């Protein structure tokens, strides 16, 4: 019966000579080559499905039944923004005797998408959507006007 200390020493020498520890690591890498382990997303051919609560580009919502803009021009989003990048002008509508939003400017180049504007909006008008494709060719293109916020921005799809 060989001495257990001697036996483990022999084992150890064999492990060192035959690079057992390195092959164990290589086996892990080899195991991960199986096609079922591929987790690369082929963007832009397949676009990722982002979460519902994702904080992307802003959108001004309209009432689904009447089609009226939900924004009441209260300026709370502009006050909540840490970067002061929302600029709203509003004027009093003589017919409904209520304040109405006229222009809405949102500067996405300075926005950090924190979601504070979405949180304070009392009428669910301002919402950060799942749209994350917001690249433009110019710095001015990063400033969203009311029209762009209401209609949403569709990223240009190239053939790939």
């Amino acid at each position, binding site marked *: 019966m060989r001495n257990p200390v001697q036996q483990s020493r022999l084992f150890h020498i064999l492990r*060192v000579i035959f690079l057992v*520890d*390195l092959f*164990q*690591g290589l086996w*892990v*890498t080899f195991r*991960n080559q199986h096609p079922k382990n591929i*987790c690369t997303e082929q963007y832009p051919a397949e676009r990722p499905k*982002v*979460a*519902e*609560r*994702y*904080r992307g580009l802003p959108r001004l919502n309209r009432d689904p039944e009447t089609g009226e803009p939900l924004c009441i021009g209260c300026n709370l989003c502009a006050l*909540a*923004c*840490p970067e002061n990048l929302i600029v709203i002008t509003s004027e009093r509508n003589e017919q409904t005797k209520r304040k109405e939003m006229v222009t809405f400017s949102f500067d996405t180049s300075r926005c*950090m*998408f*924190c*979601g*504070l504007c979405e*949180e304070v909006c009392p009428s669910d008008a301002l919402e*950060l959507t799942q749209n994350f494709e917001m690249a433009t060719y110019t710095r001015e293109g990063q400033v969203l006007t009311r029209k762009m916020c209401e209609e949403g921005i569709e990223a240009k799809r190239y053939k790939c």
Partner: protein
Amino acid sequence: MPDATFLDSTELVLNMGPQHPSTHGVLRVILKLDGEKVLGTDCVIGYLHRGVEKIAENRTYVQFNPYVDRMDYVAAVSNGLGYCLAIEKLLNVEAPPRAQVVRVILTELNRIASHLVWLGTHALDIGALTPVFYCFREREAVLNIFEKYCGARLTTHAFRIGGLQYELYDGFEQEVKAFCDMFPAKVDEYEELLTRNRIWVGRLVNVGVLNAEDCKRYGVTGPVLRAAGVEWDLRKAQPYSGYEKYDFRIPTGRNGDTYDRYTVRMEEMRQSVRIIRQAVEAIPEGPVMAKVPKVIKPPVGEAYVSIEAPKGELGYYVVSDGSTQPYRVRVRPPSFVNLQALDRMVRGGLVADVVAVIGTLDIVLGEVDR
């Protein structure tokens, strides 16, 4: 007789510039070398200084919350936790139990995510090119949970002063439990790749030794202190957010070398899974937000609150003058203080060890420079 030139000296001053793949950010280390032996170093930082503490004096308490995520951007949730705990201390409110448990779950997931980045990039610097892919693949699972919960993967802005903004989404518990079931096997896989690999052992054992006394002198905390043998963790010493309810071990090392820091962080990942499992079993019902006024105006005073961030002791010293904006917010960054010990750790070693030590200190330049 030719004149003496710079070639006659054996000392070489080498610049490991701000743009370098192994400095984990914009860190400049000026090395004084004798061949390959390091005689001294000088760190130049401040390339990522954004004046976060100055910004804090010009924003309200709620508005400043998103800015803290951007300091330690790898583990953004902990920064938010520290800040919210500090303001809650000033206001003398406590988050409701449900919010506290969810905070613990998210913070521990964030700790796992931070250690995965550390492991991947540290292994990449040493030369092991495979673990980084596997670490980031597991990190995707964690970031997906963050995305579904609060809407962002990296700069999460997950917590609010007084609790949480969002209720848990449907399927949160299942996904977290599935992650806990899947993850320990992956940690075993990383260990299979690295722990007994002769190259890994050869590059890490007895490199960058920092013993316990030096750790305390340099104010170094976190896994670096625990690897030196000091069994100290703020989650056990001064528990916050309900950590006293969970049963977990503090892993320690023996020699304080780079290999011990590696084993400590691997074990911390396993212990984090243990905490998450305990927390997700028993999420109490109730509100997620405490009764906090709409406009936050803490009374005049100051408080220092610190948490165990993945990198060390992250502290917030907030001074309030009774108005809606903080008077002074000081962030005590663990990476900044840990980086000071770099000189002590690499002196007398080789140049290749500088890369290993920067990796093992686990610094994030966003936190060093703020």
